[in-house]
């Protein structure tokens, strides 16, 4: 087992699947010669050739549509969209084709399509390149959405996505590509959609995903010093959601805090809060709270940008408020 970077884990997963199954191929802008904007397909064109690691023109709807057609014909395409912001061009292929064809064909066609793309706020990329949009895709029945937060999950979940007969969006995060973690390529993976408890705690449950998970874990560590034990759940999948893990935890702690980078309004947290209150209402000791991004196009100014999404202090404050504890001096 070794410590590698998130992008390296994705690279290894893609390499392993390309090696294991001739039906697997990847395509997208700059995936070939350049090796991928975030180096995910680095070295793969040399290894598997330009037909299986395919550069495309800037034409998201077309090459995603190509991926849909290839999947219908039995291949296992891995489409890379440079960022989730450009997936807006490919919405017809993703929403009207990939998500619908298995249903509308009465199951005659499967859709073993993987669409990889990074989302999230990086550093000063401007409002049009700082979107998260995961709740938009959650609203499309028929899609699976994996949101790996660790290199290990990136490795596992990309391989599982490629092997899945359903269309899977692997939503990466621009700020996670260079995060480090141990990856065991031999360990057996939990199911693609299973949520994992990253830290146990008795006082409240914090549900999070993607880059907000490390942030929540830091907050949990800070709360530990105050005598508060916050459980941190990493959802790992936004569609479907592993309700069993969330419900079990909330029934234990009776308090739930949701941390999401996406906008608060009609976001992931809204869905989580609604479902969890239905399932846990009589065991809740306080209203479910959300710490989320502000409902505004991301400002370019670095200070404003940082203030537009959850920071550790926001999580600490929300957790203390949820537990009826006095706020520290700040």
């Amino acid at each position: 087992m070794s410590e590698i970077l998130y992008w390296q884990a994705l690279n290894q997963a893609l390499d392993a699947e390309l090696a294991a199954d001739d039906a697997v191929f990847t395509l997208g802008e700059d995936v070939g010669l350049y090796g991928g904007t975030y180096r995910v397909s680095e070295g793969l064109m040399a290894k598997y050739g330009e037909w299986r690691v395919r550069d495309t023109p800037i034409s998201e709807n077309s090459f995603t549509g190509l991926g849909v057609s290839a999947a219908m014909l039995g291949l296992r395409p891995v489409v890379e969209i440079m960022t989730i912001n450009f997936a807006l061009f490919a919405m017809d292929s993703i929403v009207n084709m990939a998500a619908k064809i298995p249903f509308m064909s009465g199951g005659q066609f499967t859709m073993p399509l993987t669409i990889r793309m990074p989302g999230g706020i990086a550093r000063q990329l401007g409002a049009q390149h700082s979107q998260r949009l995961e709740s938009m895709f959650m609203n499309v029945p028929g899609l699976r959405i994996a949101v790996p937060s660790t290199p290990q999950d990136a490795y596992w979940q990309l391989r599982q996505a490629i092997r899945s007969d359903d269309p899977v969006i692997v939503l990466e995060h621009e700020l996670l590509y260079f995060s480090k973690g141990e990856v065991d390529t031999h360990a057996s993976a939990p199911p693609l959609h299973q949520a994992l408890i990253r830290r146990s705690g008795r006082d409240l449950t914090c549900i999070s995903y993607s880059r907000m998970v490390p942030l929540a874990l830091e907050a949990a560590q800070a709360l530990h010093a105050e005598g508060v034990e916050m459980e941190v759940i990493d959802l790992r999948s936004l569609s479907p959601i592993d309700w069993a893990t969330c419900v079990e935890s909330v029934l234990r702690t009776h308090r739930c805090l949701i941390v999401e980078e996406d906008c608060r309004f009609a976001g992931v947290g809204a869905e989580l809060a609604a479902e969890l209150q239905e399932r846990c209402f009589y065991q809740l000791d306080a209203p479910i709270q959300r710490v989320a991004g502000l409902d505004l196009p991301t400002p370019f100014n670095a200070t404003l940008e940082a203030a537009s999404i959850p920071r550790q202090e926001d999580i600490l404050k929300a957790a203390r408020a949820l537990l009826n504890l006095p706020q520290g001096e700040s």
Partner: protein
Amino acid sequence: MKQAILMPVLSDTMQTGRLTRWNKSVGDPVHKGEAIAEVETDKAILDVEAFADGFLAGPLAPVDEDIPVRQPIAYLVDNREAALAADDGTATAEKASEAAPAKTGANQAPADTTPRATQVSASQATVPTGKEDASVPVSSPPAGTQIPTSPPSPSAKRNAPTTVPTAGNLPRSAAGASPYARALAQDLGLTIEEIQPGADGQIHASEVLAAALAPRPVDLRYGPPYQISKPSALREAVARNMIAAAATPSFRISTRVDLSPLHEQGKRLRLSFTLALTRACALTVAEDPWFNGVWTPTGWVSRSRVDVGIAVDTGAGLITPVLRDAASRPLAELAEYWRILLGKVKTGRLAPEDYQGASFYVSNLGIFAEVEEFDAIVPVGASAILAVAAPASDGRTQLTLTCDHRGIFGADAARFLQRLTQRLKDPAWLQ
């Protein structure tokens, strides 16, 4: 810069403090170490000292309300303008009562409709604390009890005690309760209306659990008409200590002894009977380590010095000044020390180090000729307490020793009484 002045923690048992007066007003300059307010704690009135130079800024916490320790009671700012700007003088009471969430709760009605009255009791005004403020009972619902409330009539404003009707309807708590709190309350057989809300005015599971673990409130609904007033901090502290002491497994052992030899020997030496008796007890305690220790969860605590606490009736309640090192100090020094302690009792200025932490206690009701026998409760932290009654018709006085059975067994206690009786019968040792 604005810094909060907090309700100080003046003893390890102190959970709330009650301000008896402000020595300074908003905008006044204060110097480091200066007494800016007086606070009544468990057993004493102590000064709140400024921790830095500055100007006092509001909101000032109200006088005569229980304020949790470490809550802000006022602020210190750098200049007078800031001090005056921070407080417009009107919102003081409301803001300050927000700062004391323990006071709020079910009675979150506007101040005028809160059934509360302030009254100076004539009998308590003579309390030898020298502090009239300290004896002002504020009638206000104590935590955890059910008080039928009704809107007070116009005449029943702040100056009259609130008389609570006997057949009042149970009030529905204005506080919301979390679903979990409700479920828990149902499981525990509690009704949500009888639970005091938490700091945010809502009832959570923690409040339900606290209510379940607390002693059941007295149901006053069907009894005679009554009024509720706030006991003094001293009385509340005694009540808390007595509840804590009830957990001590104890037994009693008695004897009768003629105390006149000790009286006479004391007179010869111009020594008060209390001191002579204390000395006798201290010497006897010093002979048996089991009497100079206490059982704790972490182990048996044995002490290297005998400190004897003496129950004193202040008229307003019970207090136990402690004579440190009562076994080996020179008698004259002990007498002087005792005189100082009694002076502090009279002015209500006994500090925690004056009344806490005795190994052994003495309670003497001998001046009440009718009391032929009684026994006392062992305070937490002590090994035993000796109750001294008045002499019976045969001239002998009943002594009853109540012992903490975790450390002391029956035969130990018997031997203790044997040695003590010997000392009392033949007090030639007292010089």
